[in-house]
């Protein structure tokens, strides 16, 4: 397949993306000094750094779903994970500081719908971890410390969910869906934001494919919550609170810099219905099973600082400056990254 022509094309594509990236970072740095640690760092990061950033997020998602579906972490098989055919992950990543996973337990699912979705999603997130670990090889980051226990009530309280300080996503089908909602749209925005930063065309296609899977998951979660609570008086109303919190954390991480065209403010919507005009007619009510900007209906994109600020509950920004490593909530010791990576 590869011939000289192909290679030249690939290099042209790669250099084009890299150039755009450099421009974007230059303008960001100009507007908000300190948005990235240094221009030298920004200029030298590689596809590996981007994929390692994604790997940290997949560690987080994978362990959440494994614990909820099987009652175990991704690296320890038990009878439930084995019966479901979920891969046991060998934690082969060595870059950075290995940590432990705390909190989390098997959800006593009562409906086939939600239980089977949890099992499917766990398997798929586990495969994403495996794929990234395998692709990164000796460059892969270690699994960092991950908090899947007290992190949830902290976030739920910050989002002002009723009785949020005692919230557990492992208590019931409904609570599990709320917990899953916290992650899924974030994964979409992270992969979307990363897509144009990747320089190897094959990596772009894989990232696009994982982006699609994260959006399938997000659509699954939002659809299921809408079916359970079409009136939006219970768990569906929590989605609005969570989305508002994510949007505010994301906005804070911009530090006044111009957002991506597909990162409007707010850059997140819960399930609250909105009004639309169809075929030039009068307004009608529509659900919001898609998390996207209202005009062009293009999913939101977030940069790594925005994503870091969400998953650390505001740990990426302090006193108008970017804090690195971002620490807090799900990542009590921060993410793992190479010298030029994102944390």
């Amino acid at each position, binding site marked *: 397949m590869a011939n000289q022509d192909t290679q030249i094309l690939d290099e042209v594509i790669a250099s084009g993306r890299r150039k755009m990236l450099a421009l974007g970072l230059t303008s960001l740095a100009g507007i908000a000094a300190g948005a990235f640690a240094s221009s030298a760092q920004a200029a030298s990061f590689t596809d590996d750094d981007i994929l390692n950033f994604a790997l940290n997020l997949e560690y987080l998602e994978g362990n959440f779903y494994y614990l909820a579906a099987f009652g175990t972490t991704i690296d320890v098989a038990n009878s439930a994970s084995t019966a479901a055919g979920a891969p046991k992950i060998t934690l082969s990543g060595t870059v950075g500081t290995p940590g432990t996973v705390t909190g989390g337990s098997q959800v006593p699912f009562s409906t086939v719908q939600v239980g089977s979705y949890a099992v499917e999603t766990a398997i798929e997130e586990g495969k994403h971890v495996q794929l990234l670990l395998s692709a990164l090889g000796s460059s892969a980051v270690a699994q960092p410390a991950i908090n899947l226990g007290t992190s949830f009530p902290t976030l739920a309280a910050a989002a002002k969910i009723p009785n949020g300080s005692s919230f557990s996503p492992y208590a019931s089908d409904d609570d599990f869906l709320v917990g899953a909602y916290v992650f899924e749209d974030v994964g979409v925005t992270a992969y979307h934001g990363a897509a144009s930063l990747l320089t190897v065309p094959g990596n772009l296609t894989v990232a696009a*494919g994982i982006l699609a899977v994260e959006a399938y*998951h997000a659509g699954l979660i939002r659809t299921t919550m809408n079916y359970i609570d079409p009136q939006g008086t219970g768990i569906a109303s929590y989605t609005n609170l969570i989305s508002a919190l994510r949007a505010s954390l994301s906005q804070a991480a911009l530090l006044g810099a111009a957002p991506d065209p597909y990162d409007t403010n707010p850059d997140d919507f819960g399930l609250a219905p909105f009004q639309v005009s169809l*075929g030039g007619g009068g307004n009608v009510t529509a659900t919001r*099973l898609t998390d996207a900007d209202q005009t062009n209906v293009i999913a939101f994109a977030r940069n790594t600082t925005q994503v870091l600020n969400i998953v650390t509950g505001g740990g990426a920004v302090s006193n108008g400056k970017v804090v690195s490593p971002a620490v807090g909530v799900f990542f009590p010791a921060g993410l793992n990254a190479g010298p030029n990576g994102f944390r």
Partner: protein
Amino acid sequence: MDKLTALMNRAVSRRKFVAGVGATAGATVVLGLNGCSGSSHTPTPTPTPTPTPKPVVFTDADVLNFALNLEYLEAQFYLYAATGAGLQASDLTPGSASTYQTVGTVTLGDAAAVTGLTPAQQDILNEIAYEEQQHVRFLRSALGSMAVPMPNIDLSFFGPLAVAAGITKTATGDGSFDPFDSFDDFLVGGFIFEDVGVTAYSGAAGLISPAGVAAGYLTAAAGILAVEAYHAGYIRTSLTGRAIAAGSATNYPQLGAANLVEDLRAMLTVGNSAAPSTAGSVETLLVLPTSISSPSAIVAADPTNAVGFARTVNQVLHIVYGSPTVGVGKGGFFPNGVNSVFATTTA
């Protein structure tokens, strides 16, 4: 990082995508349609001679216009289902610099507002219709004078398609498949398009030039890809959830109908495309979970790595034209073909 590519066994340089329209192709894939009982097909790679290459020279505008043709189709389908009317006239017109200057028409068939919806279901149809309408508008706006007009669209093709898929025996009238007849049948109609939309944008992402990437086309395409996947997730979740609620596949024939659509889509692309996903099928059959500990199959992705599929332009055309034949430029949902340099299948 080339290892990622190797792992996926789907190198997708620009050239590889274009392979469907010209370059030397590698092995193609023959899907075994018999005995598909699992959640995905088992492919049997079979080397197949490639037809004489016929290079297609294309621009970023051509890539976006190809997507626009598909969005016209989706928007008309969902708008008719939600409201009984289609896109407004101002959303159909050609850009002044477009090669194509004739606005097409819609053959309606059974197209009409779906009846018997609950308010919650109506709101969902409204959302999807709105979102596809806005994709049409976004692409038209991005393309400006280069935007192609809506081609002729045939919404009566659902009947013949269902016959080809083995869902019904009759293409029209009593006993034919009508996606506008009920919410459940609407889900099957939407199912025909949604996974295809996801894979089409995945495939198109690699066709965008460096200049187009710098102009933001790639990010926009990735964002629309995500929205199509939200929709596909919605459709597949609904079909699965309603089948679970019905208690059995027999009680909910739409689940089986959707899987017959997947078989048909696979069959239409057998042996005729140098697909980026030649490592495996690009379909994931729906399953009916039987317990809280058995997995559903909401996500359509490769079974090894859980990475979403991509389709080439040719594969997409074979599906929307309803024809596996190479060299075909029209048919199915597009009776006069798409308004595109890619209109005729070349592989």
